[in-house]
């Protein structure tokens, strides 16, 4: 549910730090009917043009705080609220080349009443200016 709204494609952009492109980021929404504490976000997967991004290069930011996937596992205060746009950053020197790219995003959410994680999956073409 809400899979088609996971990637906010118009927000995709390269990330610049001190004049250097250090990666790229995009806005992301939760594929579930309520918000969750970050410890219950089991996993996030990002792939660009068919190539999966190494998990250690992914950062997740919400409410002005930034986490690695490993840090999210034990984060019990910060929440990914329902419909809120979080920022997913991929640290990758040089970022993405200008033009169109196929962005794929998977969320595995640990839902207490379900025997298996709920998987949300979205894929969109994004344009890097």
């Amino acid at each position, binding site marked *: 549910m809400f899979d088609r709204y996971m990637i906010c494609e118009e927000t995709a952009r390269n990330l610049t730090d001190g004049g250097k492109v250090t990666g790229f980021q995009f806005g992301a*929404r939760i594929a579930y009917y309520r*918000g969750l504490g970050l*410890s*219950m976000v089991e996993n996030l997967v990002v792939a660009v043009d068919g190539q999966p991004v190494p998990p250690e290069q992914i950062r997740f930011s919400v409410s002005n705080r930034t986490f690695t996937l490993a840090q999210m*596992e034990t984060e019990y205060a910060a929440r990914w609220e*329902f419909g809120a746009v979080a920022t997913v950053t991929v640290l990758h020197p040089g970022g993405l080349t200008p033009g169109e790219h196929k962005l794929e995003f998977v969320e595995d959410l640990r*839902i207490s009443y379900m025997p298996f994680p709920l998987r949300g999956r979205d894929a969109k073409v994004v344009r890097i200016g």
Partner: protein
Amino acid sequence: MNASAKSGIRRGVSLYSYQEEYFLRKLTLEQCVAEAAKIGAPGIESIGEQMMPGFPNLPDSFYEQWRGWMAQYGTVASCHDAMLDTKKYKHRLLTDDECMVEFERDLRHAAKLGCKVIRVLCMVSPEIMVKAVPIAEKYDVKMGIEVHAPYYFDHPWIMRHLEAAARLGTKHYGLVPDMGIFTRRLPRIARDRMERMGATPRILDYVCEAYESGQLSEYVIFEARKMGGNALDVSWAEQCRHSVNTNPKRLTEFMPYIFHIHAKFYEMLDDGTEYSIPYDKIIPALKAGNYQGFLSSEYEGNRHIQDALPVDSVEQVRRQHAMFERLLAA
């Protein structure tokens, strides 16, 4: 006085129904309340973690604002849907004591909203519920186990809950049945979505007919495979396992334990009926049992159409309430 007031059945909306519009920031929490008020459905059910960002740590100012809205729109808080995240930690479940902390939190929140009932998910055990009863009594908020498909009234798990409640003789432990337990036809909007995803129309139709005719799920799943069904076809056949078609008359029999009703629906048709769930049988059964409580809309069609069609939850809920008005007056 209108007919619904006479029968003691009151109309309400779970704001879950407007999730699509809230998610996309087309409606705010206040606007969701206003939409329910507009169709004469004063009972407002809510999920803290859905439309109250910051839950469970909401400031007093939030509750003041909430009570202000209830007064302004002529609505009342009917029910809070508790979630109980037993899998908060990756490598272990919450202990019983930790569960009680969560119950206290949710019951206190419900009392502050003005709710008389919380919905408890059906996976919560009778043992945990028994432990939570003193907290519910303290806040004077009733706890209703959601009877949600594939559970149904006579399921052994639900029977154990009722036995535990009867043993305690408490008024604070009962049921919140979800009308999805009366699904006589699988939602056609869900069938059509499977077709868009790549399922085989012939097999989808077979499964719909087999479900409607009451065939056992295991046979339907086997047959879908035998017909050469792909993974989507088989998963549609497996829907038969997750759906139940029980007799609405059971509502009358279990009435002493029914605190609140989730009026689940998938698709209101142009003729004012729901495609899957027979409200023309449900409402007479509620009347026969002298149900005193809310009929709380729970629209769940958005997830099946959002990939291809515009979602208009407000219109779907409006249509469901037009049907309720008609059936309550009958």
